């Protein structure tokens, strides 16, 4: 899992040899947390709210959730990187932005997977 996340993030952000913390822990923990967060948000959107109540299911709601993913992905990466490194530099900023996009991508993938199980959002986003 860690290897996969490391491969993914280094593909998108490039490697940083001076900061082994990214390979050691940050990529793995941020990657897993992001995956789980996207899973959680998709489950919340499609399985919980999407089946329970007719409140959060529209395309506009989905776009807002996607933006939440972007912010959460950024925040998650920012927080973990800062906590682990004790500093926040340009590479960490790039990583945080990329992770926001990655989390959004996860959410889109989970959306395709989960929407069939939803009632109100089974045709969201398309």
């Amino acid at each position, binding site marked *: 899992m860690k290897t996969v996340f490391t491969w993914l993030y280094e593909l998108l952000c490039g*490697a940083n*040899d001076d900061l082994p*913390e990214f390979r050691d822990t940050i990529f793995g923990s941020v990657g897993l947390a992001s995956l789980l967060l996207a899973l959680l948000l998709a489950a919340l959107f499609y*399985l919980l709210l999407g089946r329970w109540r007719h409140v959060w299911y529209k395309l506009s709601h989905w776009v807002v959730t996607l933006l939440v993913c972007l912010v959460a992905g950024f925040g998650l990466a920012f927080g973990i990187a800062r906590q682990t490194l*004790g500093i926040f530099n340009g590479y960490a900023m790039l990583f945080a932005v990329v992770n926001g996009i990655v989390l959004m991508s996860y959410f889109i993938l989970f959306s395709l997977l989960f929407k069939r199980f939803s009632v109100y959002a089974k045709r969201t986003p398309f």
Partner: protein
Amino acid sequence: MKILYRIFFFSLAFSASAAILCGCRYDQDKDGLDDEQDACVKVAGPSKNQGCPIPPEVQRIHLFLDNSASMAGYYGPATDYKAIVTDLAVKMDREIKAVDITLIADETQPFRGSATDLSNAFATTKFSTQRGSELHKMLTAVAKRAGKREVALLVTDGILSFPDSAILRDREINVNNAKSTLKNDIYAAFSDLRHAGYAASLYAFQSKFSGTYYTYQNGHVPLKGEMRPFYLWVIGQQRLLPGFDARLEAISSFHPAAVMHFGLTNAALHDYQLLPQVSKLGHWAKADGGIGDVEIIAGQPLQAALGIDLGSLPPYARNLSYLRSHIETTCEGCTVTATVVTHAMADSSKLKTSKQLLAFSRSSHVLLLRVTAMGLPEASIKLVLPMRYDNWFQAWSTMDDRDIKSHAAQTFALEHLVQGVLDAYDTRSKNFIEFNLKLRK
């Protein structure tokens, strides 16, 4: 469809929970502290001590003074012995823990007084009145007093000898049997101690000696202020002793001429921390099991710093000259050299991340590996620091003390005494440090 959905959902929830439980936290020693924050990753310890076990505190110190007749010369007027011993007793009592004093030779006699009374007692009371005892017996008797949270110290001249009666029968018995019987007695005594979890330290001092010296043939040689060695044995539980030794050596007036430790380390050190922000040269990155993404360009060597904590090694093994002269580095698939520097000498100016700062702060030394060539895609560096005991005791030893005046600074059969202890603490590991590092292109 509903059943399918439920199965899917619960599998997902289960996987997610499992991933959270297994994937998010790394806590090898299961002490509740993530490895990220754990100063002792492999040993459980409370979080208030950064995850490292709190070393037990010594609760009692038992000081034994050898008062056999052969020690009389140390109790003469104005000897270093008396100054060192009284100073040691008082400072241990004040700075470490309460000290009780016992006189030991053929029999043991408790000293009726405190550590501060010892100085007066030396001036007013005649010590060294007893018949001598065999050293291994005294050491065994002393060790017996060292309970789980206690240490026992013995101040003695350290001379191995058979009883007088045996010498009367065979005047050469001490010389002929020092390497066998006497050494084996010592070996047996310390072997028992080792199995009971005891370690030992030996501190050597010099002192004026004014009195009769008894040769191995039991001949009497009067000495008048010649410098003679005497020894302080410290015996205690292995987990207790390093801490006690450290506090002992921290006493400002404690200046032994030589030191040896027995049984403080059982296994070689395998841990190191790669420090990419210290003296890094070339292109490489930290990888599982070593270094990855290595790019060697001709004329531009690659350098990697490894932080190592040698705190558990005996002081002599931590000494930079010892490290530099004994450390052995070999590489299969590359050309490598290693340089050791102390923590203070390392270039920490580029350290910025907290984990590296922490790793560096936990390192007593930094090992700089310089790779100049790497022909294969993979290489394996092996780094070893062999366990070489200090051999000062050989210079401090003599097997013929009949002309003691010309060998006053030597102790009869000390080499066999120390060798007996070394044999007792001999471990499978012959190395202080031993680790492998993979290099991948």
